């Protein structure tokens, strides 16, 4: 068994704008089961950050507990990380983000971590529109504790032991839209072509970006009858659109038919170009997205792609009107401006 990655890489590995190769964005060798969907998502995150030329030290990875929450060890080894408590990633992320708003925040969670024990934290971080990427690696089970059904397991899905799940599933994407998430996407670990541009768009989105990524658990939930297996997902996947992420000041290369394509400009000037595959849906109209999701559920389809986006809503810092300078960089003289300033404030309350 290998515990270490070889030091060698392809001698012609391309470099990004800041001179790094993919290697500088990798983490240590995964200890998850071979073939775990979570590893593919990690690889997609590595690629997205590499392609966006993000400086690794500007990223913080925060996670809860679960196989999914272990993955930050396996990507972005040169970034900051905090492996927190089960279901409590959002509060740690909120704290970190409040202190330093200049970082890219990756919240990594699982369906167990978010939809069960962490549900309370999950809903509140959404309604606050915290500027972060929130990835749920959704395998429909508690992988780390050996595959018990989670709250996202579909009703009727059969577990490896043959047990049929009697409960309704929590649809995290619908829930996020309902609670006012400003960016909601759904994808599949086995579809990097879709996942990587989605991740890039999510990173550049100013506000809460939620990605529900179906990620088969090869060991406990990849059996016939499971609705989160590689085969089932591949058969039932329905992409809403083909998505291109066009970074700021780069030329748009692909041209789609008028009417079928939509462009969304993000805060930093980069653009998302969507070539719609499904016509009765508009990613900027919540009602149409919710009904598209409902319709898909009726047809046992898994809708993927960017589902909903709103670039107008203020993120938490905007709402709280915090200082321009990140709070952690304020010096003592700014934080304790002295008796005179205190008196002025007190006068204001009289």
């Amino acid at each position, binding site marked *: 068994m290998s515990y270490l990655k070889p030091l*060698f890489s*392809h001698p012609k590995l391309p470099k990004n704008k800041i001179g790094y190769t993919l290697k500088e964005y990798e983490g240590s060798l*995964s200890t998850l089961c*071979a*073939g775990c969907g979570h590893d593919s998502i990690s*690889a997609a995150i590595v690629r997205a950050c590499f392609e966006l030329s993000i400086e690794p030290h500007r990223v913080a990875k925060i996670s809860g507990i679960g196989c999914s929450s272990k993955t930050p060890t396996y990507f972005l080894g040169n970034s900051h990380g905090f492996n927190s408590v089960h279901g409590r990633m959002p509060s740690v992320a909120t704290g970190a983000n409040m202190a330093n708003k200049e970082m890219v925040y990756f919240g990594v969670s699982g369906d167990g971590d978010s939809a069960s024990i962490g549900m309370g934290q999950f809903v509140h971080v959404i309604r606050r529109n915290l500027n972060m990427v929130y990835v749920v690696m959704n395998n429909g089970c508690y992988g780390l504790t050996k595959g018990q059904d989670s709250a996202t397991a579909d009703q009727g899905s059969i577990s490896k032991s043959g047990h049929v799940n009697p409960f309704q599933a929590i649809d995290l994407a619908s829930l996020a839209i309902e609670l006012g998430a400003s960016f909601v996407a759904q994808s599949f670990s086995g579809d990097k072509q879709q996942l990587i541009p989605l991740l890039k768009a999510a990173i550049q989105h100013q506000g809460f970006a939620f990605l529900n990524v179906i990620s088969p658990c090869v060991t406990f939930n990849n059996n016939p009858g499971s609705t989160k297996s*590689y085969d089932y997902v591949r058969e039932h996947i329905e992409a809403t659109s083909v998505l291109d992420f066009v970074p700021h000041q780069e030329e748009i290369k692909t041209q789609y038919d008028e009417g079928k394509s939509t462009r969304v400009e993000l805060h930093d000037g980069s653009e998302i170009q969507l070539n719609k595959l499904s016509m009765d849906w508009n990613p900027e109209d919540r009602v149409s997205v919710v009904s598209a999701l409902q319709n898909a559920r009726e047809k046992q389809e898994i809708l993927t792609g960017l589902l909903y986006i709103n670039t107008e809503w203020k993120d938490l810092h905007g709402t709280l009107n915090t200082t321009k300078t990140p709070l952690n960089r304020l010096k003592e003289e700014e934080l304790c401006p002295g008796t005179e300033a205190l008196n002025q404030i007190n006068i204001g309350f009289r």
Partner: protein
Amino acid sequence: MKPTNTRDPEYYHKVVDCQYACPAHTPVPEYIRLIAAEKYTEAYMVNWESNVFPGVLGRTCDRPCEPACRRVRVEEEPVAICRLKRVAADQKGDVKQLMPQGPFPPNGKRIALIGGGPASLTVARDLAPLGYEIHLFDEQIAGGGMMRSQIPSFRLPETVLNEEVGFILDMGIHTQFLTYVSSLREVLSQNYDAVFVGTGAPKGKDLTNLPGRSEGAASIHIGIEWLASVAFEHTKSISKKVIVLGGGNTAMDCCRTARRLGGEEVKVVVRSPFSEMKASPWEKEDAMHEDIQIFDNHVPLSFEVENGKLIGMKFQKVKAVYDEKGKRQLIPTEEPDVFIEADEVLVAIGQQNSFPWIERDLGLEFDQWEMPVVDRTTFQSTLPKVFFGGDAAFGPENVITAVAQGHQAAVSIHLFCQGKDLMDRPSPYTNLVSQKMGIHEWSYDSQIAADHRYAVPQAKKSVTLKDRKKEVELGFDVPTAYKETQRCLNCDVQTVFSADRCIECDACMDVCPTSCINFTENAEEDQLRLNLLVPAENTSQDLLVSENLKTGRVMVKDEDVCLHCGLCAERCPTSAWDMQKYFYSVTKAYQVPAPFPSLQK
């Protein structure tokens, strides 16, 4: 692209870069692993089976394997393949008991071998155990050919050569040394069933037309003749100031030998630029280390003789100019001619074949360059009974090429003597075995060592320059040899892919440290090469293309910089990847039985 046919024995063979580049296709990683396991005797036998002279080659081989080594493409320096071979030879135990043991029951056929160099000796080794009665003729005092007469003892001690020549001659070969064969007709009249010509390329080129050549004759020597006369101890000294003409390995051996026989100011003068000299880089380094100056871009004009005594040589200075096709021309510079002082000159500007002893009316055709017409596969001449090999066949090469050709000539002779079709050649022996021992356990050491190449220690110059027989290289000690073995990437442990098992989870693609693995739409090769994660620009390395997968894509692996680390197979949930050791051995006329299972049929 069509799915790769990995059943073609050459596909996986090509992945083992060193073995593929070796003319005799020595199973390099196999012996390197045996050295790591301290199984020196077995490591020696793997070599001996394939290249016949491990001790000699471990010191002197031209090592075409090393520039081909995969390590060059992922790191910088190749594995010290050649010097590890020497470790096997230095540390070996009793190997003789593992070699074919005579007397062999005679098969009634008689073969003549003309010349006793590595080519003939290889034929002898391959045919003797089959019961052939073998008669070997050589004009020298003992066997070994140029390995004895040309390669100086400070690179190849006589004891090492004697031992390995002895292994063969002890198989009951009838030798007639000090016998110059002056007529092929006469040999043919002895009714041998076949005749093998392994007489090498014995004639050194000269500068006959250069002014002063005849006046200075007493002080001007042909390099290879001079080296032979040193080896056989007819020449024991040289003057203080020596010019060596030529830039190949012979020139390097001449200048270094001259340093040991009394030459104090030894200068190598060569026409071409330094970087284009034919000598191997390590030979040049060793020469310069022995205070030999190399003057490049100097074309000889004349030998300068005063009062009947050679006083030096005149040279014209040139520079290399290249046309669009990259063809080189040496253009004189405006600088004045250069005079270099010398008491003696060694002319080492190349060797030629010469067959004055082969009558031209025997039905044995010669081409316009006076070279025998020889088939490149069978080594048969136009006189069916007569075969050629080594330097005699296609001009001067090296020991390992002579050995490789000797093996093939032996196969042909054996087929010929049985009345079989010479073109119906035996296919190589191949074997592909999984290295899986447990879920993530391999029976080979899959860790990749980042160590840089270790240098072989050398004896002190003050010692080696005083004694022409003192070996310069000391060889690796065992601990260093072990560390060097760990640099080998085990390229023979193949990544074997089964498309029907793949669930396209991408795990292998994501984990591969050198980005070899891709899942992509199929396309024509040129396009496919560009479409990979890292474009596959090295077209000398193949792509492994799978059958169609469930999603309609294919798996494409660029073999170029695969580390054979096995991570793909470790991360694959379905064992669609497996690490399997590929053993490839050129089939010989007589297959030497091996002391361990992987070589046994």
